[in-house]
């Protein structure tokens, strides 16, 4: 716990100091203490602070969504992507470029959110058909089916409209480089709402882990609670994807790593996942600024470069923890 908070602090400082133009620790300290700082440095620190805030927020949101998803589906491979969020968002962006003539990042954000939300509602609705409701297996299969179908439509559009391919290939990398306070505000409220839902549901998720029947006998209204948690997940990952583009793997990995470290209790996994996710995304973003100078590598790419080795290590050397 303490280690995690320490890591969080270090990640914030590193994210502010390190970049194409490095800021000295002393200058940053002066800035924080409101002592005079050269304009150039002050501007850079300002921008980096906003960017760090974005990275931490989006990282926390994606990790929370992943933790909720793994809990509700009782599937350690659960990932917000299973609800078709990324494929829905990508489809909507490409559709908007190809047929609605949209081209600004702001319109991409709206498209991405609508696409993500509509897709996840569709997945959930189709998986709910039948008496036992949206069970984990049905959700996973339905999500994979709809994702793959949408992916095919996306391919069809980008093969026919090369400007759609051109925009999509940039958008789908996922980046926090364009972070600004103005664009932060509509999204943050939805993220907070989603986060609250998940944090207050963590006890319910623990009960879900015992199986639907057991959860019901513990007094949970399984269908209703599952739906509420699903709304929270959709708010979190839909909004996050609309703000930065798709950032893969974080939602899968953060809760998985936490489970290996703190055990299967979701009352710990959920809040700690948020912190861990924030740390991971800040580190990945910082690495992306210096890994291939003079260019920046988008955080969606470095997230995976940083995340996969950690993940492989955990799978290889930690005891397999089942839900």
């Amino acid at each position, binding site marked *: 716990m303490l280690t995690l908070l320490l890591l969080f602090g270090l990640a914030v400082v590193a994210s502010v100091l390190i970049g194409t133009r490095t800021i000295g620790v002393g200058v940053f300290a002066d800035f924080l203490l409101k002592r005079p700082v050269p304009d150039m440095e002050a501007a850079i620190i300002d921008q980096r602070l906003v960017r760090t805030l974005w990275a931490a927020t989006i990282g926390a949101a994606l990790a929370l969504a992943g933790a909720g998803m793994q809990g509700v589906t009782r599937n350690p491979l659960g990932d917000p992507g299973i609800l078709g969020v990324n494929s829905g968002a990508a489809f909507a962006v490409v559709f908007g470029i190809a047929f609605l003539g949209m081209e600004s990042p702001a319109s991409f954000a709206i498209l991405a959110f609508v696409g993500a939300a509509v897709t996840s509602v569709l997945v959930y609705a*189709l998986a709910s058909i039948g008496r036992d409701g949206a069970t984990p297996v049905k959700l996973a299969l339905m999500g994979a089916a709809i994702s793959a179908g949408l992916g095919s439509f996306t391919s069809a559009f980008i*093969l026919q409209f090369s400007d759609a391919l051109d925009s999509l290939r940039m958008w789908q990398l996922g980046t926090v480089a364009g972070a600004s306070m103005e664009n932060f505000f509509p999204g943050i409220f939805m993220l907070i709402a989603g986060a609250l839902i998940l944090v207050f549901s963590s006890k319910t998720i623990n009960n879900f882990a015992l199986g639907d029947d057991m959860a019901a006998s513990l007094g949970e209204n399984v269908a209703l609670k599952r739906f509420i948690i699903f709304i929270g997940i959709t708010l979190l990952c839909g909004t996050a994807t609309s703000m930065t583009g798709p950032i893969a793997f974080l939602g899968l990995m953060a809760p998985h790593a936490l489970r290996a470290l703190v055990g299967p209790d979701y009352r710990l996994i959920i809040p700690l996942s948020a912190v861990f996710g924030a740390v991971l995304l800040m580190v990945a973003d910082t690495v992306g600024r210096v890994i291939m100078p003079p260019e920046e590598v988008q955080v969606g790419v470095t997230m995976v470069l940083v995340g996969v080795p950690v993940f492989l290590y955990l799978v290889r050397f930690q005891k397999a923890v089942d839900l």
Partner: protein
Amino acid sequence: MPAFTTHNSSPAQRVKDLRTRSHRRPRRAIAVLAVAVLAVFLMRVLLGSYTVTFPDFLTILQGGTVEGARGARFIVMEDKLPRAVLGLLVGMAFGASGAIFQLLLRNPLASPDVIGISTGASLGAVLGIVYWGATGFSLSIFAVVFSLLIAVGIMALSSGRGNVGHRFILMGIGVSALAGSIINYLISRMNLNSASSAALWMTGSLSSANWDRISILLLVLAVIVPFVVVLHSRLHAIAVGEELAHSLGLNVAITRWIFIVLGVLLAAVATAATGPIAFVAFVSGPIARRLIGGAHSLTASALVGAFIVLLADFIASNYIASGSMPVGVLTGVFGAPILIWLLVRAQKEAG
């Protein structure tokens, strides 16, 4: 045995009845599937925007030319027939490969598209396009080598004690994410033309079908398929339960590795020939299983795979306005609703 005596027959007899019944349905379903695949194969060759009659087709096959339509020979032998044959072969390979992994790892999500084999092939191809200007056959080599490297990497990382299957899927998803992200990065940095051809290849297309490619694929399949045919009962034994397989005297670990290698090779050579045709490996198993009433069958999965690819290519090349839509787009567009429909129907029956 007449039905009305079933009630007072011995338990052993009842089990026997049940067994014959459960054997009968798959055989019949597989026969029907085989006929359906043949029909759609002929449809792909004979019908469409350029129609050939069956007698003319036979004449062309025997090396003759059709009176009044000298171009027919070229169109059939250099375009329609190779496409159909290649579609048949890769469809079967994808279908069987997906079913092998799903059965072996006992997880419906464990198809080669999900566990990194197809992504590995795509990464190889994209690297080939970007750094070596690879096309055609050399592109295929890149794809095969990379998917094999990735598969070997996943195997090495996941071997050891404990639940190997579980670890294999996790490692595969991780490696797949890594390869996918490198692909996206490379695509974002290449010029738009290369990006288009990479995107086309990654969708999966039969447009590069020719007899050279088919003969290479056939040669490789001729090595792989006998292993699958001879050993497939062991796969089913493992799928039922590892302890059962042990008690039957099987070496579970070795059998599992053999099938992982076979499944990877099937997926890799098919991917090399056409690109990863979306969704075929993933849906063939579940659809086949549904059609034959819950039993697993590699043959049925292979046939479903071939059916999907052939039908999708027929529609893509004849009924889509631009005429250049790759088959991979259609397999996803059709495969998804079919799978969704099967899932929903299964749910309604259960509910």
